[in-house]
């Protein structure tokens, strides 16, 4: 007891002594420092699909539309839009008097240039083009009006225009300096402009006073690349970063206990399931698949392994997702019934269930072991096979070489079930190595051609219900997005997709 008060006194003294020294050098007035895990290497919007790119890029660039933490779509560089010619043409009115950071004006030509580049040869080199293939081309109507001519219907397009590959880039700057230079010296119309970039270390931004939505309240935003979660937390505790984006669930209590920090845990896009092999093994039988779902106590896993930072799911999407059906409930945990179902299906005790998973994920490693524990209690013989992620994702899954179950984690920033469901369940897709279900294919294709929001939502809900009915997967949970944040930050609205936009944030 005595020892601990002495220690406390000592650490206070140390903190008091160090504070005036450390504060000015680490945090100038009005600077926020954020730690991200990965350095995307290139800041060109068409070069990446990394969330960490967007954590930074969302401050440098603007899209025609915008979506904030409230998930509502609002005008960005376009002030309004209308659908013409039976939805095959979308007309955007552009915001006037907008400037890029280098002084270049934003206009219809910039929009056309951006999408010609994204859909052309330069875009082909990156991973973004395929998300925007529904656009045929962009036509300039007048300097402040553009038409998107569609190749096929795409109800999610407006959302997709709010981020990643659809961020508007400056034509003259790119033509003069070239793509290579642009990768490391990005210029956009966003609230912060690029200052300097040291690969694998940090990227520095400063406020762009001429931003169309007004001058942002901070002077500077610094993003540091720190891959190791323990390091991010240590830096956060030391006050050298303000926001940590990489906090494993097991370490959440460490942040929670710190009086200077707050832990933010909000619904995120990431959903995790065990997909089942419908072609081989005991999981061929739909009743066995249902028994496996019922035999795993998903609530207990969320409570014990995720420490409550997650929600049970009935389909492979978060409750923020378009296509979510609140009336679709997960199958309940019922060990006795599951055992009985297995028996009725003629499954022998000790039947093998192999779970293939990405070996680098600490949280799922625990989840998989817990799930295996429940399968053991069902009388089955589970085994776990960790893989290097590229091997699992590029060979084992697409070539149908998985065991009875495999680890499936997904988190689309668009929060639309279409993208997920189509890639997961449509015949011939990479993530669907085992099934060819004409009924499911038809449903998935039909919803892609429908712009009517209500009708499309109903169709997507039907897809979710059908998948649940076929028990194609064991839906485990929707895990929360977690941030550790220094309490000196004010007005910080945490985005569940981690696409920060520091326009209103202030610091003490």
């Amino acid at each position: 007891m005595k020892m601990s008060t002495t220690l406390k006194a000592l650490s206070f003294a140390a903190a008091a002594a160090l504070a005036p020294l450390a504060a000015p050098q680490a945090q100038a007035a009005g600077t926020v420092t954020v730690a991200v895990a990965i350095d995307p290497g290139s800041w060109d919007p068409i070069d990446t699909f990394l969330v960490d790119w967007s954590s930074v890029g969302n401050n440098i660039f603007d899209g025609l539309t915008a979506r904030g933490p409230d998930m509502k779509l609002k005008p960005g560089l376009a002030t309004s839009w209308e659908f013409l010619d039976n939805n095959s043409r979308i007309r955007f009115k552009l915001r006037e008097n907008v400037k890029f950071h280098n002084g270049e004006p934003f206009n219809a030509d910039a929009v056309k240039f951006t999408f010609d580049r994204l859909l052309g040869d330069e875009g082909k080199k990156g991973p973004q083009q395929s998300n925007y293939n529904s656009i045929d081309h962009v036509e300039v109507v007048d300097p402040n009006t553009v038409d998107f001519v569609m190749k096929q219907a795409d109800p999610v397009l407006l959302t997709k225009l709010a981020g990643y590959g659809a961020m508007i880039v400056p034509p003259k700057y790119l033509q003069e300096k070239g793509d290579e230079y642009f990768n490391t010296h990005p210029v956009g119309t966003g609230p912060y402009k690029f200052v300097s970039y040291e690969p694998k270390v940090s990227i520095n931004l400063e406020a762009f006073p001429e931003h169309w939505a007004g001058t942002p309240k901070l002077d500077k935003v610094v993003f540091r690349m720190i891959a190791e979660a323990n390091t991010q937390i240590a830096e956060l505790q030391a006050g050298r970063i303000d926001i940590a984006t990489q906090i494993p669930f097991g370490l959440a209590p460490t942040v929670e206990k710190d009086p200077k920090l707050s832990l933010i845990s909000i619904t995120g896009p990431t959903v995790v399931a065990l997909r089942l092999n419908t072609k081989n093994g005991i999981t061929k039988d739909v009743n066995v698949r249902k028994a496996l779902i019922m035999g795993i106590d998903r609530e207990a896993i969320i409570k014990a392994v995720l420490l409550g930072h997650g929600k049970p799911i009935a389909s492979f999407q978060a409750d923020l997702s378009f296509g979510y059906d609140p009336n679709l409930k997960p199958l309940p945990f019922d060990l006795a019934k599951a055992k009985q179902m297995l028996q009725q299906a003629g499954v022998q005790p000790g039947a093998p269930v192999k779970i293939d998973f990405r070996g680098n994920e600490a949280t799922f490693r625990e989840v998989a072991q817990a799930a295996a524990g429940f399968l053991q209690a069902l009388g089955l013989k589970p085994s776990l096979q960790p893989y290097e992620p590229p091997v699992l994702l590029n060979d084992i899954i697409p070539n149908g070489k998985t065991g009875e179950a495999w680890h499936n984690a997904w988190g689309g920033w668009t929060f639309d079930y279409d993208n997920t469901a189509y890639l997961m369940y449509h015949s011939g897709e990479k993530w669907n190595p085992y099934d060819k279900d004409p009924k499911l294919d038809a449903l998935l294709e039909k919803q892609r051609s429908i712009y009517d929001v209500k009708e499309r939502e109903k169709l997507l809900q039907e897809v979710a219900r059908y998948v649940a009915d076929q028990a194609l997967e064991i839906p485990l949970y929707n895990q929360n997005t977690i941030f550790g944040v220094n309490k000196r930050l004010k007005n910080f609205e945490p985005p569940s997709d981690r696409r920060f936009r520091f326009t209103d944030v202030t610091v003490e």
Partner: protein
Amino acid sequence: MALAQAAPASRRWFRSFELVLGVVLAGGMTLAVLFSGLLFPDGGESMDLMARLLPPFQNPAHILGTDPLGRDVLARVVVGGRISLTVGVLSVLGAVVLGTLVGLVAGYYRGVAEIVLMRFADIQLALPFILIAIMFLAILGTGVDKVIFFMIIAQWVQYARLVRGSVLALRDREFILSARAIGVGNGRIIFQHILPNVLGPIVILMTLNVANNILLESSLTFLGLGVDPLIPSWGGMLADGRTYLQSAWWVSVFPGLAIMFTVLGLNLLGDWLRDYLDPTGQTSR
């Protein structure tokens, strides 16, 4: 004068201390592992999500506490030794058999066989181990059998070079020449006259390599390239405890100590054996 006499005495004492500690540590761990089935019939696998991360030395049912899934750490440490010792011993035995054969053939027959085999060994020595391990296991998949197989492939070279060197020194000695002169066959010369004379250094290298391979298995499993995480193993337990280093040290510290004591014990034994078998170190016996 007094000093000169004191030195061997203290060394002798140290040598026997080395032996005793080595036997106690390595032997104790081996015994515990051999009887782990009786001590912990559940194999350290029974899970209780409501009793997760219990601290050690507080609950008589979990003397060393529980891990993030509520499994008994003591049971898993003891049972986990099975994998470590199996991998350590089997991989070394495999590498010894393969390496010794190659070394004997290369050293005794020389010629083309020696050039081909030894250049092959040189190439392999030039490859970085962990990198090759990651590639190899990423392609073949993981599992105890593959880890053992890989270690054999990676380590036979050491034995081959060691044996070849000894054979080169022996093959022209008088007793071999006389054996050949009275018409003893090559096979018999190799296995009856040469092999017993090269066994000493092999045995020493073996003890050190068992220790080394236990560490390697733990590293590979820690990296997710080793054995099934469901099977208790020391490396796997370290990986499980990694996120909890700040909040629940016991999850990773106890398997870490188990690795440390086993490896230390084996190394002490190896040191003692080296001195015991080394003909020039007679005084220290």
